[in-house]
């Protein structure tokens, strides 16, 4: 290859890096987000075309791989339901991680004489990529309901995780010291296996409600794994793109932790004290007041301002379209309708926004927690749909509660609170919710979608 064509290829990588940077910048602005995604996709295309000029002795397998991957990607993206988006993001993230791991393995296999830095990079790609892959698979399982969303905890768990990590580090050190030979290959495979085990062990202990944090963090890992792959093949575009993703994942992780008033280490290692706190239960006395859809209709009919607080229950019941219909009816009835969205409502960052957007709710109607709390006392009715921990006043009032200190939407400050809920079961945090027995609370038991549709029918028939 001439120097001339290499320069053009390098220019392609620079253009791709710039397009990624611009794309991510635009993704952060509502008006330009969609264009930003296209810009970053264009960057990816430029990077792929550039590498195709220099990568290959033969193209058969390249073409096979690209076609198979594209077909699966297109079909998956077209068919996935919006309510299934958290697990879709998790599994795609896992695929990115395993790809980096395999790139590391292939280079270990084909380039046994590589230098120390490359060998370190290979081990990092395998470790981070492996954790991102198996961790994302477990997260996928929890989000899709294939495995229990409850944290799986056992005695000595953290000790075991630390031991796995220690063995990985020892094996890696051996690998750097003696990079070739049959034994080195066995130890390398051991590092790979243990990395995959570490991903499973780390995520299995984390409960479903903490998934927004975990997905954001795993997203960061898959970016860093791509970075490591960049150090292996000595390519700046991987390093730039991977580092951007790594940084954005870390920032999102921080935002999610802050929204739960917990530190990252608490989410990853602590787990909430399982089970309802008996002390908190003793302080909360009273009976929930169930009402019928008809009664609820009279309350809503008279309301002039309504705030709807959606939660994971709305996603499970696929109730977003019915909720939007109810919102429109209330507006036509003269009420001001807003949707208050807690940063960690649902199972991934921004989960509720996506569902409501799918149901054509205008984004001007969506309010963040800090905007809606100051005006909550002037709100006639607050409808809580399938949300629990994010409106639990125990976080504000009961110091012994495990979620004490978490910022919440102050639904209880509204004049009337309508809670749509399947049963009195506590939320994912396993904490009793005093909101349900407050003087101004009314419970509407049943499937969220069916209940909202009943309310819509009541309005239409009157």
């Amino acid at each position, binding site marked *: 290859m001439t120097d001339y064509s290499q320069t053009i290829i390098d220019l392609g990588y620079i253009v791709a890096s710039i397009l990624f940077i611009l794309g991510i910048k635009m993704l952060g602005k509502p008006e330009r987000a969609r264009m930003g995604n296209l810009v970053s996709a264009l960057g990816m295309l430029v990077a792929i075309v550039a590498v195709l000029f220099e990568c290959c*002795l033969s193209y058969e397998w390249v073409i096979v791989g690209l076609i198979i991957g594209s077909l699966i990607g297109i079909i998956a993206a077209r068919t996935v339901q919006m309510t299934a988006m958290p697990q879709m993001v998790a599994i795609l993230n896992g695929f990115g991680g395993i790809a980096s791991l395999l790139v590391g393995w292939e280079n270990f296999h084909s380039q046994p004489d590589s230098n120390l830095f490359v060998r370190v990079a290979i081990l990092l790609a395998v470790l981070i990529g492996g954790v991102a892959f198996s961790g994302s698979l477990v997260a996928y399982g929890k989000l899709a309901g294939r495995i229990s969303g409850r944290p799986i905890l056992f005695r000595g768990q953290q000790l075991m995780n630390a031991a796995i990590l220690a063995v990985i580090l020892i094996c890696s050190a051996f690998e750097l010291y003696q990079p070739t030979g049959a034994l080195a290959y066995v130890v390398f495979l051991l590092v790979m296996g243990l990395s995959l085990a570490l991903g499973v062990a780390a995520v299995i202990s984390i409960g479903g409600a903490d998934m927004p944090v975990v997905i954001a963090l795993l997203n960061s890992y898959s970016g860093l794994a791509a970075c490591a792959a960049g150090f292996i093949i000595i390519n700046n575009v991987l390093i730039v793109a991977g580092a951007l993703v790594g940084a954005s994942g870390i920032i999102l992780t921080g935002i999610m932790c802050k929204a739960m008033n917990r530190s990252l280490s608490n989410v990853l290692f602590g787990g909430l004290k399982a089970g309802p706190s008996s002390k908190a239960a003793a302080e909360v006395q009273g009976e929930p007041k169930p009402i019928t859809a008809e009664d609820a209709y009279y309350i809503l009919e008279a309301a002039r301002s309504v705030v709807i607080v959606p939660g994971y229950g709305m996603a499970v019941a696929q109730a977003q379209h019915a909720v939007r219909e109810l919102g429109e009816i209330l507006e036509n009835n003269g009420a001001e309708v807003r949707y208050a969205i807690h940063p960690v409502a649902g199972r991934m960052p921004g989960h509720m926004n996506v569902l409501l957007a799918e149901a054509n709710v205008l*984004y001007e109607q969506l309010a963040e927690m800090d905007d809606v709390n100051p005006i909550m006392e002037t709100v006639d009715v607050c409808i809580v749909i399938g949300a629990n921990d994010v409106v639990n006043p125990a976080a504000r009032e009961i110091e012994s509660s495990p979620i004490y200190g978490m910022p919440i939407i102050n639904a209880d400050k509204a004049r009337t609170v309508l809670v749509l809920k399947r049963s009195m079961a506590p939320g994912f945090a396993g904490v009793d919710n005093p909101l349900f027995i407050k003087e101004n609370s009314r419970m509407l038991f049943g499937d969220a979608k069916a209940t909202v549709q009943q309310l819509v029918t009541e309005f239409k028939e009157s």
Partner: protein
Amino acid sequence: MSFGLLFFVFVLAIFLGVELISKVPSQLHTPLMSGTNAISGITIVGALTATGHSADLLGTILGTAALVFATINVVGGYLVTNRMLAMFKRKDGEKK
């Protein structure tokens, strides 16, 4: 290219990433995550190199498998992000 230079690029890119994303409205968190997730599929460049240069059967299998997974990540990630962002609408019905 020396390792030092690569590391230099890495550190600068991390700082750039932090600056770019420190203020994103929460409504865009999901598209941002799935959009950056698609970008992490940049490892496809590594997968292409691996597939192209491997000399034996196992190397080719590993490279091709990496390529398939990375391609799913890239194609699926961008399409699904685009699908989500197409749903965000403003009052005047204009798509953004």
